[in-house]
């Protein structure tokens, strides 16, 4: 579990409303791709210690699949879609129209599929921010990693730690009602609050 949260007052703000809509659009994009009704289970906007972020995923040692996209434009930031490995495999099967259980590892094709999903989510999120704030923001090409959560998150956490021990994050848990598709979409730092 995450330790202390250093600021949750963001939640009620106008900026939070923009961010929540952006995240909702991202999850809606995933829903469209997958052809299933994917709901948001929770959205949290808060200021936390960077070193505690892996606790959001059960700890830095947990094996996860992460799809990382840098935020490019006049804001620096990071977006990562994180899944438990079996859920990521199931998602690939769903997207490729394969029988559940077909995918057992992530080679180029599977990484490409997950990368595309991440790209859609990232684009939908950033498009909403760009439309609302007028900033030109695009996602980088995606990088798909299957590794321990700490190592996956380092791409973002190391970058943020160059500036500060703390950061604002949005973490959004999304899932279908049967939890066949489930994951977390993480953005850090929150654009505009770097």
């Amino acid at each position: 579990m995450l330790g202390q949260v250093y600021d949750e007052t963001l939640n009620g703000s106008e900026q939070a409303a923009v961010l929540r809509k952006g995240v909702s659009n991202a999850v809606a994009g995933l829903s469209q791709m997958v052809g299933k009704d994917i709901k948001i289970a929770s959205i949290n906007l808060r200021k936390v210690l960077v070193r505690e972020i892996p606790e959001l995923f059960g700890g830095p040692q947990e094996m996860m699949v992460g799809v990382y996209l840098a935020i490019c434009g006049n804001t620096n930031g990071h977006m990562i879609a994180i899944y438990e490995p079996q859920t990521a495999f199931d998602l690939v099967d769903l997207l490729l129209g394969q029988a559940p259980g077909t995918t057992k590892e992530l080679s180029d094709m599977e990484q490409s599929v997950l990368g595309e999903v991440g790209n859609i989510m990232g684009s939908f999120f950033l498009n909403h921010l760009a439309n609302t704030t007028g900033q030109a923001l695009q996602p980088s090409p995606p990088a798909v990693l299957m590794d321990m959560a700490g190592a996956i998150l380092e791409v973002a956490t190391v970058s943020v730690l160059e500036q500060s021990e703390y950061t604002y994050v949005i973490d959004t848990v999304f899932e279908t009602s049967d939890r066949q598709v489930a994951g977390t979409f993480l953005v850090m730092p929150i654009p505009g609050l770097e």
Partner: protein
Amino acid sequence: MIETIVNNTAVNQESILVGLGELKVTNSASVILSCLGIGSCIAVCVYDHLFKVGGMAHVVLPHCDGKPGDNLGKYADTCVPLLIDEVIKQGGNRSRLTIKIAGGAQMSLALGLKNTFKTGERNLEEVKAALNRQGLSLAAADVGGNKGRTVRMYVNTGRITVKTTGGEERDL
């Protein structure tokens, strides 16, 4: 951030996480210091076999810019001397220190992540340079590659292990 763990009388082994930018030193035999899921970061492990004092640092970045109030444990160049000093304060002797490191991977070669390529390599160079400046040498290193690692130091024996994603825990 530096944390010194004083002697405790716990019978069971206690795993103590050394998080990003942290540095922990102990003479408590029941402790296992660990850096979990490190990528480009480097776990620097220092041990005195005679007095059984162990220290582990989780280095994140190569070089400190000197920002006031910054956490010196994050940077290879400031963290290494701090770690050595803490181990000595806890009873270690410079001439008896065994130093081993692990980590410094390049986590991804995807486009758009060009800047992250170099962090692991640069961390490694700076850790080695910092040790040289201390007049100390490396006993062992498990570095590079593109997978995460978990590093553990069993303070009762000084045994250090590395488990790379997809592999087994093995001695360093």
